[in-house]
């Protein structure tokens, strides 16, 4: 048992090295004097200074974060209630609905982008944050649903019924019993949604307006001139910021206990 746990921990560490190897390169190149992100030349902090001059890039990062945060939140709500409802109630043609939910995952991004663009023209929805967020929710919520469904499989029905027997309304039972039970799946779904939304390029191109360009659009546009290390610098700052937020919040949680 002990040996198994140790080897699992070692394997996890190996996979983490795999995850962070390119990230280490990315961070390293943020200190590179060469403008082209290809060969190492020398050390500089210049690119960190240039983040503050690059208003367009910072604006794109802001847009990306706004879109990713709202899309994640709404995808989680839509996907969690959706998965629970389809699981708990006898819904007519449930298999059809489940298959339809599956479409955004299989549909090529360009088709999704073009067809949503045409839809927005038909329903006269002006391109902007709303249209990007709608599109992002559409390709994110199926991921949440799949994660929740996997967690629901094998759910002990007595759990919810016991709560109801104790006099809780279904809504309270959902909130007090089910949500905590589903929490790991909700967190997984949220992490996947956030990641997908933050890095999506093609659907976003078709549904964004001039003022709502996101970071991936901006970065892709820069490939031709060479991806300059400012992009690495901004990624590094973003990673550092997230890591510190996570660590600090964990520390606070532990202290409060």
């Amino acid at each position, binding site marked *: 048992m002990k040996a198994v746990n140790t080897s699992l921990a070692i394997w996890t560490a190996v996979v983490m090295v795999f995850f962070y190897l390119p990230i280490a390169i990315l961070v390293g190149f943020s200190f590179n004097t060469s403008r*082209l992100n*290809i*060969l190492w030349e020398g050390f500089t902090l210049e690119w960190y200074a240039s983040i503050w001059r690059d208003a*367009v890039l910072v604006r794109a990062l802001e847009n990306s974060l706004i879109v990713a945060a709202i899309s994640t939140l709404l995808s989680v709500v839509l996907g969690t209630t959706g998965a629970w409802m389809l699981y708990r109630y006898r819904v007519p043609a449930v298999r059809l609905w489940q298959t339809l939910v599956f479409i955004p995952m299989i549909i090529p991004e360009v088709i999704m982008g*073009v067809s949503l*663009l*045409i839809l*927005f*023209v038909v329903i006269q929805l002006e*391109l902007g944050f709303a249209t990007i967020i709608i599109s992002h929710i559409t390709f994110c919520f199926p991921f949440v649903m799949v994660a929740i469904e996997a967690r629901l499989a094998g759910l002990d029905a007595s759990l919810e019924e016991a709560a109801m027997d104790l006099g809780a309304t279904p809504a309270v039972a959902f909130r007090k019993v089910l949500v905590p039970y589903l929490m790991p799946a909700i967190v997984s779904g949220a992490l996947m949604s956030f990641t997908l939304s933050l890095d999506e390029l093609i659907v976003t*191109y*078709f549904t*964004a*307006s*001039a*003022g709502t*360009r996101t970071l991936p*659009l901006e970065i*892709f*546009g*820069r*490939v*031709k*001139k*060479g991806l300059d290390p400012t992009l690495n610098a901004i990624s590094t700052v973003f990673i550092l910021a997230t890591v510190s937020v996570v660590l600090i919040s964990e520390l606070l949680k532990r202290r409060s206990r």
Partner: protein
Amino acid sequence: MKRIASLAGVFLVAASVLAGCQSAQEPPKEINLFAWSEYVPQGVIDGFTKETGIKVNYEAYASNEEMLAKLVSGAQKYDLIQPSEYTIEALIKENQLLPVDWSKVPNSKNIGSQFKNLPHDPEHKYSVPWMAGSVGIVVNSEKVTEEIDEYDDVFQEKYSGRIVVLDDPREIVSWALGSIGKGPNDVTPETLEQVKPILAKWLPLVKVYDSDSPKTALLNGDVDIGIVWSGEAAILYNENPKFKYVLPKEGAHQFVDSLAIPANAPNPEGAMAFMDYILRPEVSKLISADFPYTNPNVEAQKRLSPEEKNNPASYPPGDPKLEGFRDIGEQAVQIDKIVTDMKAEG
């Protein structure tokens, strides 16, 4: 009662006249610019806004067809677009562009004569050339020592696995056409049949297909020779002069990216003001500084630094044979299929 009605009528007329005046006095103070990513320097946009008070909403795309997709969907109205030559031609054919009123663009006198009246805009009515460039051969002269000046020189057995080319069926087919003495626009079912065996010989030798950043494979040393955009070659040359740019003697594709005004533009006046602004030599020079393509503005060319002028990828010496792409309609579908089939064979 009657009096009141007539009074109201007078008021209405007066109000509408006033409103009319107001809208005439205040044209919409913004333009929607839909252009290639990173092609319009922020400094140019800021300068224009500062001088005219017209705000520029810059939206970007990465290919002509990507631009067309969004343009024809009608989701957004644009005042200025920046298509390449064959796309301009297609748009003119479909009556999708407004003619430019040259009296409002006096700086158009700065446009070099070889960039006016090109086949895609034969009467020079619809477009203002922004930047021009070519597609040519780039050679790492440390690795490739022999003289390379034809397409066939690139696709030799000895360079197998050392070649990068643009991932663009139309470009690839145009090189094959060039190698049998045809122009890039001699696209017919017969000529396409003729290029098939050539492609079958060439494509297996290619190591990397990359339209976005072919310079990467060359800089990394993973390939030694390639057929790439002149802008990529110029960046490579600036990085290391060992990268030589050669325009094949059979002739090469010259692309001309131009500004044009879509037929449904809400603010064509503002669009023409922008055209005039970027045609000023001192502004045009800023664009050159940002992007190492050939500047079609002769007055701006005079003000370039010697390094800029001497970059052989931006300003190829001699008198190379260059030709733009024409709109080839349905034939593009055939070209696409041929190259897809050939790649799938390999």
